[in-house]
């Protein structure tokens, strides 16, 4: 009992001293709670479906950020990982009869393998070269998919895959919990030593190599990690939609991921996730303007970028918080002195 009270008190202190001091942290906690409680308020199947898909794509966008945002390895072919995850989950389920909880991790492993395969030639390239080369890989795979219609179903894709779970609400909970868990893991990775090395590679690869770090290994690690998370989202997508088609490999899919991630603000993890949660439902709710939908989407992205080129969430965060000039800790914008070192905030 005492031990329990101790942990409870510790939890309270953490919430009071670490969470409530910054509005951005409160928002994150609220976001978690709201997402987990959504089915309590509404049982609307359409709404749940949208948010399930949103969560799946949130994993994808965050995994792009892990690779391209943090390591700076601009990947224009992120649909490759998504498509490999979706197709291998679908193939394993259809031909080997493995249930979803087995196919999704195996599909993710397939995506890791594809990350290794494309990572090795791409390690020698950087910047724009890399971006333009990675664009090629999903298209190559798509050609192979079309050329083997007996196995992959060609243009129609593989249909008749097992459902993720029995009901829409269970589907929702599985994807949301997986999304929140994986995004927290990604955020933790970027916060760890590995993440700092990723960040350093982005800033100055030569300096990192001069510090005795094998950058090649870390870049490959980034490709594999990103492939793993994107593969999981691909597998979830295949089992949720019950179809794995060539649309998962399309160029527009790759571009969509880049738009989400940059719109939210790269090198943040929370940025891309938030951007998906704004842009994807927006696109769905604009459906009453069927013809104007994509146009509106493009215009919104263009206009927001014009005013917030660093991404929406970074802009918002800089509005409500400011960094202490002395100890680099973030504070609420209303404060005049830093909450830790009491230095004057400007």
């Amino acid at each position: 009992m005492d031990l329990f009270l101790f942990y409870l008190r510790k939890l309270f202190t953490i919430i009071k001293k670490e969470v409530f001091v910054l509005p951005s942290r409160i928002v994150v906690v609220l976001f978690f709670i709201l997402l987990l409680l959504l089915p309590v308020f509404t049982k609307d199947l359409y709404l749940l479906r949208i948010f399930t898909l949103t969560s799946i794509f949130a994993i994808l966008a965050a995994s792009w950020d892990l690779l391209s945002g943090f390591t700076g390895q601009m990947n224009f072919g992120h649909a490759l990982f998504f498509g490999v995850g979706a197709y291998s989950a679908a193939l394993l389920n259809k031909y080997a009869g493995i249930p979803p909880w087995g196919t999704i991790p195996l599909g993710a492993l397939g995506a890791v393998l594809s990350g290794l395969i494309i990572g090795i030639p791409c390690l020698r390239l950087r910047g724009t070269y890399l971006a333009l080369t990675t664009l090629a890989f999903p298209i190559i795979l798509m050609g192979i998919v079309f050329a083997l219609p007996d196995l992959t179903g060609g243009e129609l894709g593989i249909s008749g895959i097992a459902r993720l779970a029995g009901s829409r609400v269970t589907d929702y909970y599985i994807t949301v919990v997986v999304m929140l868990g994986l995004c927290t893991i990604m955020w933790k990775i970027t916060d760890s030593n590995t993440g700092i090395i990723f960040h350093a590679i982005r800033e100055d690869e030569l300096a990192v190599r001069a510090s005795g770090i094998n950058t090649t290994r870390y870049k490959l690690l980034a490709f594999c990690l990103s492939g793993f998370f994107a593969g999981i989202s691909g597998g979830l997508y295949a089992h949720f939609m019950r179809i794995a088609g060539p649309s998962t490999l399309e160029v527009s899919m790759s571009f969509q991921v880049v738009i989400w991630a940059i719109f939210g603000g790269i090198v943040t993890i929370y940025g891309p996730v938030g951007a998906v949660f704004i842009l994807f439902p927006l696109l769905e709710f604009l459906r009453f303007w069927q013809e104007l939908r994509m146009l509106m989407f493009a215009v919104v992205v263009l206009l927001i970028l014009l005013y917030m080129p660093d991404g929406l969430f970074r802009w918002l965060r800089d509005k409500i918080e400011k960094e202490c000039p002395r100890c680099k800790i973030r504070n609420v914008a209303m404060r005049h002195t830093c909450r830790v070192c009491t230095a004057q905030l400007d």
Partner: protein
Amino acid sequence: MDLVLNIIISGLISGSVFALLAIGFSLIFGVARIVNIAHTAFYMVAAYCIYFVTHKMGSHPIWGMVAAIVLVTLLGIICYKLFINPIREHEGAVLIATIALAMAFQEIMVLKFTGTFLSVPSLVKGYFAILGVKVFYQQLLTFCVVLLVMAGLWILLMKTKLGLAIRSTAQDREVANLMGINEARVAMLTMGISVGLAALTGAVVVPLTVLEPHMWLHPLIMMMAVVVLGGLGSLKGSFLGAYILGFAEALVVFLAPMGAFLKGSVALSIMILVLLIRPEGLFGVSFEEER
């Protein structure tokens, strides 16, 4: 024999198209470091412009070509001024701004002309036969125009003052600025030239292809492959790379089973193979990384 000739013609045409597109793309990349995804979208807009002038207004296709080139070049400069110039310092933002532009153009075209497949009459009708294979005059015209434009561009870049300014800005922006070159103006002019080239490509090639709002995606991918294969910023590389990939595509389409599906894959695999051996492309110079 028929097959060989068909492959040569089809390879020359698609190679020429890719070459013009790739040169425009690598010009603006070299000068302003803009990865212009919307480049082939301008090509599509030019093609629709011709369709509009010939079908809706009933004018001669030559007016359509002129209108397309002028209007699309203006459109390109306006888009640059409004959407790209203000955020040029943020590489990622520029990237998705151009993607969004391309999507916007595609959607506008879907709204205006619907998504159906359209076609445009050739500028010159008729064909002649070599060894029993039809060669349309339009194909010949496309090929000649591409060669002429390429020669003109070479003269512009190598012999004129503007060309010197463009090349020096591409080499080092800051030093070029210090030497009294108005870097912003050069970037804008280059954008104009680059989009103009895309419009011209669209104008000469549209009678040979079908017109649809998604027609910019395949050339975009091939154009990027050409640019990477030839080496970024190298005109010679783009020229050669374009014909290599054009012929590769033609060979696959005519010879391999399921060729139409595999053409993109094979061409892109060639690009990746070359990159494995020469990471900077065929003619690219491996310049020191900008730090």
